[in-house]
């Protein structure tokens, strides 16, 4: 054999499959674990493979919505099946892994947050199909394509030797040809196998793959065998394209334009919100961070576990869930897969493997749902008339970690210097900034208390060496933060997110509208503008609160009210006779003043409904939605765009926000269930 280079086809006789597995297990002097298909629990799952006998030789699968059965064909084929319930993400992004070890021991250095270091062992992924390699490329973009990467995923991915198998036996639920992900395999493999009558046509995609072929001393595949392999894959493609129901990914891209389509209610009546579709999906990537500790032990861990947008708590914040109904969650899942994934990652989130269809206990078929919504959408329901174009491109090349991508950082330990009680349930912590932590106005940190939680908290003041966090006690973790005293340590991860465009507002009139604790993230804006007062035009600050006693920074608002170069006013929802200020809603303070569209910038923060009213009033008074900046709240776990919780339409609030313009948020602000 001359050269086992890429592009050459070799023949592996069926009886030599065992040799291939032996070589894979020990190839290149490295001991590798081979994960591959095997029959277990009535299905073909991926598990550790010791010998060729572990493979599903002679088995066939029968798949339909809500239905999966194996039957013994009795022939010698080892890969004559379509993908089963396991996805490779189980090995690259495991269902649970310890992300961090934490400690809350006494003493100056007692508070610790130590990320676990990735240590993936060399693994062979044997039997990966075209759609599965496409799914890996999709997850590559999620986990290693951004500024923060999941280093465990990246490590496991780099340590994986991929033996792809081209599909020849599709299931009725496969629609890979719609999503351009299969049945052939074009990239992303070390070795590529195509099963034929008496064995396999094998090709190397990498040098490492070539080495395996060299050590097997294979003969080149003859024309006939190469032709048989090619024809088998082509026939498979033909079946998937012409016999199976498909999806038009370009049309499906518009799914999110029909949020009120009645079909969402129909599918929600069937959907169990059981999470099966998301668990079997090879691209679903959402996770939750679970605090773990035993009794009063000072040490604990943070475990990252698979989560699903179908769970009750997925989009919940202290005030309730943004997606309280099953309808909201199904819509979120489907529109994310087919619509909003595009602006996030440049591809759809679906690879057409059909697992979500097969493993849905009540037989919901995404292909049917997409067809029903995408083809019968009432015109008036469209939220955005803009033409969207683009080709499906699942990216033939595997993504390596993006330049500048860094592992998700652990919290750094800061020390509380001072605690100010703001209201009966709110305190401001002044914290000595740990080295390396930089924050901009409008950004947030994850404020971590070991063993308890790490809620996102906006920075409410920035000074050299210190920052302030104003925390309202709305749950156990924020309550724990509120109980901290001077000298106490706490963890700070971040600062994260897009902040307020204070620099860009120079030369303009500035309006600040705050409601309740929403004044906290706005205070750094006011600080910055007042510190450089001459660079701005008129400056107005309007603050609303529930009662006079619930108003944070009350004394400070008083100093703004005293200034001649600032218009400041506050209003409360209700008051006793001692309150001599206005009573009503915050918009009453500014609605009657006409604004100059070209030279006014507004910064707004408060409950979503209040921000909506404020945006309406500001637009009515002449402002442009592009000049009104808001900061919004969503459930966050990771803060860096990896956990999936904070999605709002196409945005990750943690990464793309939390500060947005009213124009950006327009379609989503206050819309139920988004």
């Amino acid at each position: 054999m001359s050269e086992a280079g890429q592009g050459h086809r070799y023949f592996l006789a069926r009886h030599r499959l065992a040799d291939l597995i032996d070589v894979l297990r020990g190839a290149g002097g490295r001991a590798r674990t081979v994960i591959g298909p095997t029959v277990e629990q009535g299905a073909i799952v991926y598990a550790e493979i010791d010998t060729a006998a572990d493979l599903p030789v002679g088995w066939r699968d029968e798949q339909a919505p809500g239905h999966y059965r194996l039957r013994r064909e009795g022939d010698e084929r080892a890969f004559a099946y379509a993908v089963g319930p396991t996805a490779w993400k189980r090995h690259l992004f495991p269902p649970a892994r310890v992300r961090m070890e934490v400690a809350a021991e006494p003493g100056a250095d007692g508070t610790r947050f130590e990320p676990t270091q990735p240590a993936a062992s060399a693994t062979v992924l044997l039997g990966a199909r075209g759609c599965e390699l496409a799914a890996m490329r999709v997850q590559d973009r999620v986990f290693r394509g951004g500024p923060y990467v999941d280093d465990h995923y990246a490590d496991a991915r780099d340590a994986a030797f991929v033996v792809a198998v081209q599909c020849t036996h599709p299931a009725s639920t496969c629609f890979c040809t719609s999503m351009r992900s299969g049945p052939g395999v074009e990239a992303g493999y070390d070795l590529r196998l195509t099963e034929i009558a008496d064995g396999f046509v094998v090709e190397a995609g990498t040098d490492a793959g070539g080495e395996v072929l060299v050590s097997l001393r294979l003969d080149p595949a003859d024309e006939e065998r190469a032709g048989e392999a090619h024809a088998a894959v082509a026939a498979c493609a033909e079946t998937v394209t012409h016999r199976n129901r498909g999806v038009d990914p370009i049309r499906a891209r518009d799914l999110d334009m029909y949020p009120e389509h009645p079909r969402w209610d129909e599918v929600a009546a069937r959907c169990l919100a059981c999470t099966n579709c998301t668990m079997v999906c090879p691209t679903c990537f959402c996770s939750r961070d679970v605090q773990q500790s035993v009794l009063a032990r000072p040490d604990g861990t943070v475990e990252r576990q698979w989560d699903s947008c179908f769970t009750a708590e997925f989009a919940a914040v202290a005030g309730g869930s943004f997606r309280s109904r099953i309808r909201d969650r199904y819509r979120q899942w489907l529109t994310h897969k087919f619509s909003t994934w595009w602006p996030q990652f440049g591809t759809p989130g679906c690879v057409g493997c059909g697992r979500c269809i097969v493993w849905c206990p009540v037989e919901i078929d995404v292909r049917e749902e997409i067809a029903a919504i995408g083809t019968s959408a009432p015109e008036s329901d469209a939220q955005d008339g803009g033409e969207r174009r683009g080709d499906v491109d699942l990216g033939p090349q595997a993504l390596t970690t993006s330049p500048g991508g860094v592992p998700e950082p652990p919290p750094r330990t800061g020390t509380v210097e001072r605690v100010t009680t703001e209201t009966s349930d709110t305190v401001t912590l002044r914290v000595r900034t740990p080295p390396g932590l930089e924050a901009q106005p409008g950004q947030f940190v994850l404020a971590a208390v070991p063993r308890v939680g790490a809620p996102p908290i906006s920075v409410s003041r920035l000074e050299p060496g210190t920052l302030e966090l104003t925390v309202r006690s709305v749950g156990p973790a924020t309550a724990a933060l509120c109980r901290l005293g001077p000298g106490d340590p706490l963890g700070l991860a971040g600062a994260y997110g897009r902040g307020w465009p204070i620099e860009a507002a120079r030369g303009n009139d500035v309006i600040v509208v705050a409601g309740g604790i929403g004044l906290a993230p706005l205070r750094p804006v006011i600080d910055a503008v007042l510190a450089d007062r001459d660079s701005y035009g008129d400056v107005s600050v309007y603050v609303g609160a529930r009662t006079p006693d619930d108003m944070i920074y009350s004394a400070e608002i008083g100093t703004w009210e005293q200034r001649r170069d600032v218009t400041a006013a506050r209003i409360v929802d209700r008051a006793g006779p001692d309150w001599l200020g206005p009573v009503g809603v915050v918009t009453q303070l500014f609605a009657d003043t006409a604004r100059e569209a070209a030279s006014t910038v507004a910064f707004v923060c408060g409950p979503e409904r209040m921000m909506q009213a404020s945006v309406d009033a500001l637009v009515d008074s002449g402002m442009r939605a592009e000049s009104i900046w808001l900061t919004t709240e969503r459930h966050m776990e990771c803060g860096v765009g990896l956990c999936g919780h904070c999605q709002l339409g196409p945005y990750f609030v943690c990464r793309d926000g939390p500060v947005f313009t009213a124009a950006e948020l327009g379609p989503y602000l206050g819309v139920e269930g988004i």
Partner: protein
Amino acid sequence: MEQESGEVITPAHALQAVRLGAGLGEATREKLARVGQILVRGAGAVLFREGEKTPYLGVVISGRVGIRTYVAGRGDVTLSTVEAGDIFGWSVLVPPSRAHATVWAVTDVTVLGFPAESLRRVLAADPDLAAAVYQHALSALGRRITSTRLQMLDLFGSPRTTEPVRPPGALSRRLADVRRGAATEEPTS
């Protein structure tokens, strides 16, 4: 009647400066102004009380007027305030013309008042004026309802618990009590 500047305010001047008057033609405005009276009240004064016949339709010229009600156990609760330029006492326009809340001067106020009887007479005689006044009152009420709705939402109130069936939130709050109880003498910061 004098302002700080020493200038005498007349009902006609006052009316011209507020939204109600600005929307009227000059002749109509003068007709309305003729039944108006300028009232000056010190901070804390009650203009009229809940349950009384509403004595007049008022326009705040300067200062702040409060609308309050009495709740047993909570005392007087101010529900909203009326700022300069806006109206109060709208109930004078519709039978039975009884005040639904107490109106008081939060600060020193100057008010342009249109006494009930003469207002009704002048509106009955001039349908165009009546239409303009009613429209103005309706738009003011509309804004007030919108605000009231937002206030009713209690947007800044305490978040409700997110787990109604298995309320770990409640549990942990109770735990916080347990812990506070356990660390009795520890000063809380």
